[in-house]
């Protein structure tokens, strides 16, 4: 579909240019921004949000929203962390089983989110708000509110591994972006997610099961939370039931800045990648610039609103 992707490419190009301008600005105005060290720093910081935002893109594309990813991250992490610290396993066994545990927990929570909202026709806003509390409570319950630490050293080393100055965990996130891009733009599955976001009834009357696709989108988001949880543990060497608070909002912000419409049916995961980069670059650059954390937060807020305004405006132009 050359025309459709052309338009989307143009949209993404606009966001890409905004990102480039930011990078140029910070490179010129601060001393340390463009150093290899700082760059890998930024990439590390982006990684978790990016992985969560990929899953969020699937959910927002079908016109849903997932407010539970932050809590789910904590829940996945403590479950995986518990497995990881079982003393009898070898490192390989422990990490393998912990990954399965994180994925399984994420998939289960995501599936529930999707199934409950699709089966009872409830807004996903409400259902995932419930899950936000359930998963957080579960994480606290499982751990008795304690933090889990002292993971195998090699696991932790993997979290800070670099290839040519690029963090390995960021490369994993990039690979996930590539897979998600392929699924969304080349497969029947992706096509129908876009279709559902645009006109559910037309998709239903064309003989497709809405239930399946909705549940799948939330389940994919859950699986990505599981992966994000593993990355989090590898980097910070802890699993705590109170991590991830507010992460859902950052993930949503990345998706929205990346040009995906909150009402569904429109957007790309490449946009999400750029959106996550913009948030990461802004956060890092503004600190180097000497702004306080508070100012930084305000500016990020302004950027989110600006992104949506620009998007509205662009939509009006292309519609005419």
């Amino acid at each position: 579909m050359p025309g459709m992707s052309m338009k989307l490419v143009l949209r993404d190009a606009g966001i890409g240019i905004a990102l480039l301008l930011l990078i140029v600005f910070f490179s010129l105005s601060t001393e340390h921004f463009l150093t290899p060290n700082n760059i890998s720093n930024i990439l590390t910081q982006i990684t978790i949000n990016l992985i969560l935002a990929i899953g969020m893109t699937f959910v927002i594309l079908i016109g849903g929203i997932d407010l539970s990813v932050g809590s789910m991250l904590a829940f996945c992490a403590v479950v995986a962390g518990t497995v990881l610290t079982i003393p009898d396993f070898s490192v390989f066994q422990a990490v393998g089983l912990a990954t399965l545990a994180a994925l399984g927990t994420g998939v289960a929570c995501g599936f529930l989110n999707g199934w409950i909202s699709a089966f009872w026709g409830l807004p996903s806003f409400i259902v995932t708000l419930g899950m936000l509390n359930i998963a957080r409570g579960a994480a606290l319950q499982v751990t008795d509110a304690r933090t889990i630490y002292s993971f195998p050293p090699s696991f932790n080393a993997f979290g800070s591994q670099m290839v040519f100055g690029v963090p390995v965990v960021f490369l994993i996130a990039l690979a996930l972006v590539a897979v998600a891009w392929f699924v969304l733009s080349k497969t029947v599955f992706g096509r129908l997610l876009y279709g559902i976001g645009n006109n559910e009834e037309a998709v239903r009357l064309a003989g497709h099961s809405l239930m399946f696709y909705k549940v799948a989108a939330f389940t994919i988001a859950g699986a990505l939370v599981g992966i994000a949880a593993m990355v989090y543990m590898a980097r910070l060497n802890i699993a705590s039931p109170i991590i991830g608070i507010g992460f859902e909002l950052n993930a949503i912000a990345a998706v929205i800045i990346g040009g995906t419409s909150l009402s569904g049916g429109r957007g790309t995961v490449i946009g999400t990648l750029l959106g996550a980069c913009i948030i990461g670059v802004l956060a890092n650059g503004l600190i180097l610039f000497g702004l306080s954390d508070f100012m930084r937060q305000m500016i990020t807020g302004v950027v989110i609103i600006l992104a949506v305004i620009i998007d509205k405006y662009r939509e009006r132009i292309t519609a005419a």
Partner: protein
Amino acid sequence: MTHPDSGALHQAAAAEATRVPILDLHDVRKRFGGTVALNGVTLSVAPGEVHGLIGENGAGKSTLIKILCGIVKPDSGAIRLSGEAYEPQAPRDAKARGLQVVHQEFNLLPFLSVAENIFIEHLPRNLFGVVKRKDMNVGARSALDAIGLKDIDVSWPVERLGIAHRQLVEVARALMTDSRVLILDEPTATLTSRETDRLFTIINDLRSRGVSVIFVSHHLDEIFRICDRVTVLRNGETVFSRPIGETSHDQLVRAMVGQQLQKEMASEAISSAGKETVLSLVNFRHAQSPHVDGISLDLHKGEILGIAGLVGSGRTELLRAIFAAEQPLSGTRLRNGKPAPFRSPREAIQAGIGFMTEDRKEEGLIMTMPIAANVTLASLSSVSRVGLIDSKLENAMTEQLGADLKLKYGGPSRHAATLSGGNQQKVVLAKWLARNPQVLLLDEPTRGVDVGAKAEIYALIRRLAEKGLALLVVSSELPELMTLCDRIMVMSQHRIVGELARADFSEEKILTYAYQGERRHAGH
């Protein structure tokens, strides 16, 4: 310009000099990217005139209307309204200058009530800004009564209405404000003759009060019935404009198409209906049906069975229940003689049934997705391998069906929203043809499709029936049913009240049946 009618155009221009037009357009042009939508439209409407605007699908009628109400800005050209320059920036400006529009695609708010929709522009409020619901409902009631919509409740959400009723609500809303110019873009495409007659009474009344009406339709008989003057657009240009008395049916067709139209398909088409029953209903009853015994019918292989009836007689509900878009209440559905208790459209489709819905905007198309994606939406498995879409195959299929249906489009990757109304309709049809079903339910299949393309579509449907496709066709156009069908059933008040074989077809007989049930009902 060297087309045959330029002399006529000249004459008309001379005659126009003697009138003082209320609306005057000169050489209006508009292009969308590479598509030229308007290529020099000149049009003049006198006060109290009913002005017919006709042309093939994609000729530019709706674009012109969108320009007049400020939704689309023209690239060049001059527009004058009551002698003053007129450059609306938004629909608000058009309303302020006394210009009201009923668009081809509906703009109602589905979850608000009928009354709220009618009063949306000026809700009656008390001192504290609270809506005076009673006043609103009373006002809406009388507005609906005026256009003869007696059988719907003003407190119903618009969502509950079929498209014909929605169309009438749109008209009622436009009539709420006094306007100098009223523009109606294909208002009759979904109406049966009863509603059309009422609409024409209203138009006549407006005319006598000095209101000008621009009326778009693909039905030339309607143009001759109601219009004082007619203007023809072809490929975005005004090619013809004359008082109605000085033109003829054939002349208009020639002006629209640019050539002589082939003879309509022979009316004694040979029926290809076989003996095999592919679909039957036994005491089949959908949720809204008031009758316990429901509906029973048999559809045969290769047969084209029409369902006639007035708006609200339950035709759409029947098709939706057959397709399991809504769960039927009771009764049996048999497919090839075997019970077929579908629980979802998915299962109906797997059993070889297709259903083209009446409302292309809400149920048929995904407007902001490519035309190709819409065409293949119901047959994705045939353009994909292991879940991967083969876009070459998809585009080829789109181009093939586009050619079969004479689709006028920029390319398979353009959004469905960029198509003209009639062409959107063809895409919905293409979606089901792409699937190759054995039974096809069609609800208003040619709504908004122009005369020429209609003939092509009829021929295509015939060919498919000859190959064994069984069709159940609902249409508010009796000539359509009479050209196409082997047999027509007439519905009234959710019941089948009559059945006619092809030899007995006549509008009179069909209408007698249709109204008969109505009267019996009124007598209760």
